[in-house]
């Protein structure tokens, strides 16, 4: 060990050490010479004798150096120096290779990071593998729907279960906070049982956690806030704990601040004890609105816990047949519940991974091909360095807190393995190729300079190029369609002139407005006053359950149209179509600036029990009333049975995925295009280099420059055409995968696909033309001399 330290020190100042040695040896020689002179030799003879006695100086120096640096180390250094010289000799070529490999590796790494995050990464909780989500399963229904837990059932579960170290419950609600001196704010909040954070093993960074006493009826109102609220609203005031603020309609004391990034269950900013959730106490046993979760006891495992909960559920079913018959229990690992969205996207992620993996492979093949002709060692080192410019994960407000796209150990291992495999592939591919090459072929190749590499190598190159172009075409088509969708979304926004439209959000505290009648009264009064606003303040104002293009507030409904079989449930299990809807007050269309095509707008009388009415859009008419007058027809909008996932959760997940997908898909397609072009360019350039002699002959015989260019373009075109055709076919075949991410755009949108086809043709032709034109400008005399 100490030896190696000394070696290192030596290596760091090797030049100095060698100078020292040279000086030492010179000193010794002079001394020796003096000695000989003192014995009576002439100065010249003495110098010669001294040299003889001492032996070879350079040998001494080399051997002295060998003591410090083992030979193999010096060899590697030598190789690297040679490689560096060769790399800098043809910078353009080196750059092409480095870009292809660097992009290939970077993209692979990014996708893997995403997959790792979406599918495998543990939740950010201590022993997250012991956390489970609990719920009910309605076994009476046809498809056994998953549901939440009622407060009463939750309490019975909690009291009876022994396979859990804790069972907690939560329900998500928007909460309003206000106090003197600050504007009121609407926050994403949750009512949680007092043990919720304990079960998650999350502790406040400031103040205290909820205590069981806080979660009892009649307890003083307390609230825990999230880190961002503490920072943004209260300026990270450390003395905040104990302050009383208004939460919804009543005062509550802030007792704690959760750590940064914590937002269980999704992106919550404020928490109150479960007991304060409206209607919780004395609620019915079949109001299954709570989300329950727990931590498995040390001795228990998932099947145990499930069996126990099922037993408790069936006991409850016997005791309360009216509400609990057929209600079973559901236990899933929390990590599974939370990566469900990721798993849905798995085919897409895997397809992307496959695509980028293949593109990388092609980049390797290109480089390997060129390696045959030129000894381009170790460009991989550079490629790895290039890759260090990691594509940063986007910070996104809609990102649920458990999604962490930073790189972690598995990602680094993956990257390391990838680099290792590519290095081996690099060394091996050309070597294998050479070892297989028939000696005669090689000699023939050398004689007939026109052929670019052996026939087998050329065929492999052709196939790879076609596949590469086809894959690029597929990715580009996808990116084109996604871009069109963005444009469509933008245009739709433009239909509504949003420049002077203000959005104000409002939620009614449920304690104060308990019955639907009370809420309706408030809204009617508000609507009236909005209508009476002076036109100087607002041209028009209205109430709606959602603003245009953000329907997250109202879940979609199943639509059943009376007298129409096509839209009613099918016997083969096809569910009726879903539509999204928005509840609006009068003046809605006036306010957003839309004109009714036919019929009338809502009046204050619409919506009262009895004269219920809907207004539909053009697309609805096209889909459901292609041959009939929709005015006066009767439709039924039914709420699909609640499934276990709370809506906020689904929305957050979906939005995040969609955003991620659309931004990244475009970048990957562009990167694929870049790599494909590098491939086309490099292959053509390689071909030009190999055929220099032939070009010289042709030019000497009077060939036109155009003819020379055509020589190379002609060879590339069939590849391009076949690649395009395959890519188009592929894009059309897998287009449906994109459907979920598109707004008002078909995955086979002709304009999008047409334009990316044009882009690919132009760009790849340009990549081919560049070296081809260089070939045409060659001086025949010099070209002829080329061997």
């Amino acid at each position, binding site marked *: 060990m100490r030896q190696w330290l*000394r070696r290192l020190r030596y290596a760091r100042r090797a030049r100095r050490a060698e100078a020292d040695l040279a000086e030492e040896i010179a*000193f*010794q020689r002079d001394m020796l010479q003096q000695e000989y002179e003192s014995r009576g030799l002439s100065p010249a003879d003495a110098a010669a004798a001294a040299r*003889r006695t001492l*032996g070879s100086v350079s040998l001494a120096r080399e051997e*002295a150096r060998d*003591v410090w640096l083992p030979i193999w180390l010096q060899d590697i250094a030598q190789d690297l120096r040679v490689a560096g010289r060769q790399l800098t000799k043809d910078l353009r070529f080196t750059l092409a290779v480095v870009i292809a490999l660097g992009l290939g590796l970077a993209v692979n790494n990014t996708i893997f990071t995403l997959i790792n995050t979406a599918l495998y990464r543990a939740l950010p909780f201590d022993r997250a593998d012991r956390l489970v989500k609990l719920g009910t399963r309605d076994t009476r229904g046809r498809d056994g729907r998953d549901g939440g837990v009622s407060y009463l059932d939750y309490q019975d579960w909690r009291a009876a279960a022994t396979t859990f170290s804790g069972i907690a419950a939560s329900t998500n609600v928007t909460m309003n906070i206000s106090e003197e001196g600050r504007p009121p704010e609407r926050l994403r909040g949750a009512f949680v049982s007092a043990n919720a954070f304990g079960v998650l093993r999350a502790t406040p960074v400031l103040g205290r956690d909820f205590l069981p006493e806080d979660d009892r009826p009649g307890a003083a109102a307390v609230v825990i806030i999230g880190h961002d609220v503490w920072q943004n609203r209260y300026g990270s005031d450390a003395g905040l704990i104990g302050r009383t603020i208004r939460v919804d309609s009543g005062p509550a004391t802030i007792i704690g601040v959760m750590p940064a990034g914590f937002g269980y269950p999704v992106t919550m900013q404020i928490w109150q004890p479960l007991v304060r959730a409206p209607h919780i106490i004395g609620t019915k046993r079949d109001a299954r609105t709570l989300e329950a979760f727990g931590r498995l006891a040390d001795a228990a495992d998932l099947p145990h816990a499930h069996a126990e909960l099922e037993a408790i559920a069936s006991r409850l079913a016997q005791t309360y047949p009216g509400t609990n018959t057929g209600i079973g229990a559901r236990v899933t690992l929390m990590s599974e519940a939370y990566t469900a969205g990721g798993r849905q996207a798995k085919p897409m992620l895997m397809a992307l991974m496959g695509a980028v993996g293949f593109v990388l492979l092609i980049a390797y093949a290109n480089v390997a091909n060129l390696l045959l002709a030129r000894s381009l060692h170790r460009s991989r080192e550079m490629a790895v360095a290039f890759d260090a410019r990691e594509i940063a994960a986007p910070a996104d407000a809609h990102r649920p807190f458990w999604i962490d796209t930073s790189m972690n150990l598995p990602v680094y291992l993956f990257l390391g393995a990838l680099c290792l495999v590519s290095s081996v592939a690099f060394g091996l591919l050309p070597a294998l190729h050479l070892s297989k090459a028939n000696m005669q072929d090689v000699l023939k190749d050398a004689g007939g300079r026109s052929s670019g590499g052996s026939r087998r190598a050329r065929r492999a190159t052709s196939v790879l190029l076609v596949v590469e172009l086809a894959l690029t075409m597929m990715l580009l088509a996808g990116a084109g369609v996604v871009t069109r969708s963005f444009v469509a979304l933008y245009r739709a926004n433009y239909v509504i002139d949003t420049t002077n439209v203000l959005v104000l959000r409002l939620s009614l505290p449920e304690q104060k407005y308990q019955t639907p009648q009370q809420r309706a009264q408030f809204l009617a009064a508000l609507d009236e006053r909005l209508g009476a606003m002076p036109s100087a303040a607002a041209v028009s104002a209205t109430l709606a359950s959602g603003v245009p293009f953000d329907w997250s507030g109202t879940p979609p409904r199943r639509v059943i149209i009376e007298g129409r079989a096509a839209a009613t449930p099918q016997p083969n299990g096809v569910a009726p179509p879903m539509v999204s809807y928005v509840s609006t007050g009068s003046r809605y269309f006036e306010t957003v600036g839309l004109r009714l095509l036919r019929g009338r707008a809502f009046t204050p009388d619409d919506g009262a029990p009895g004269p219920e009415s809907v207004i539909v859009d053009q697309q609805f008419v096209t889909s459901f009333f292609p041959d009939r007058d929709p005015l006066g027809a009767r439709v039924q909008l039914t709420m699909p049975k609640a499934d276990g996932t709370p809506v906020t959760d689904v929305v957050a997940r979906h939005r995040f995925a969609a955003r991620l997908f659309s931004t990244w898909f475009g970048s990957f397609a562009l990167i694929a295009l870049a790599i494909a072009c590098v491939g086309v360019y490099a292959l053509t350039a390689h071909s030009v280099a190999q055929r220099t002699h032939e070009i010289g002959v042709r030019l000497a015989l009077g060939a036109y420059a155009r003819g020379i260019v055509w020589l190379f373009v002609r060879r590339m075109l069939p590849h391009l055409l076949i690649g395009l055709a395959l890519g188009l076919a592929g894009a059309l075949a897998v287009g449906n995968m994109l459907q979920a991410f598109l707004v008002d755009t078909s995955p086979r949108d002709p304009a999008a696909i047409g334009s990316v086809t044009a882009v690919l043709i132009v760009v790849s032709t340009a990549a081919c033309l560049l070296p081809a034109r260089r070939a045409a400008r060659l001086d025949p005399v010099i070209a002829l001399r080329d061997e």
Partner: protein
Amino acid sequence: MGITNQPPDLLPGTLDLLILRTLMRGPAHGYGIALHLRTASQDVLQVGESSLYPALQRLLLNGWVKAEWGLSENNRRARYYEITAAGRKQLAAERREFDQLIAAIHKVLNAT
């Protein structure tokens, strides 16, 4: 190899031993060490640069000697080598081994 280098080949490793032993007399530069080896062996051991300097580097690497620039008798810059504590220990051990080896060789040579 130098022409007059080590007329009777030294046993492997003995040069290190001899250098360490030489340095026990006090710090010395390369020429001084070579000179001492020659005079002490009555001109039998003539050590060339290609052996002496690698040997010195080896000793440095192992931490048995340390080197420092100083002024020679005739006021020239020279690199002086000095034995370290580890070097002394090494010398003792090697000397023991060497004595054993020589004794063993003698035994074999004198055996009837």
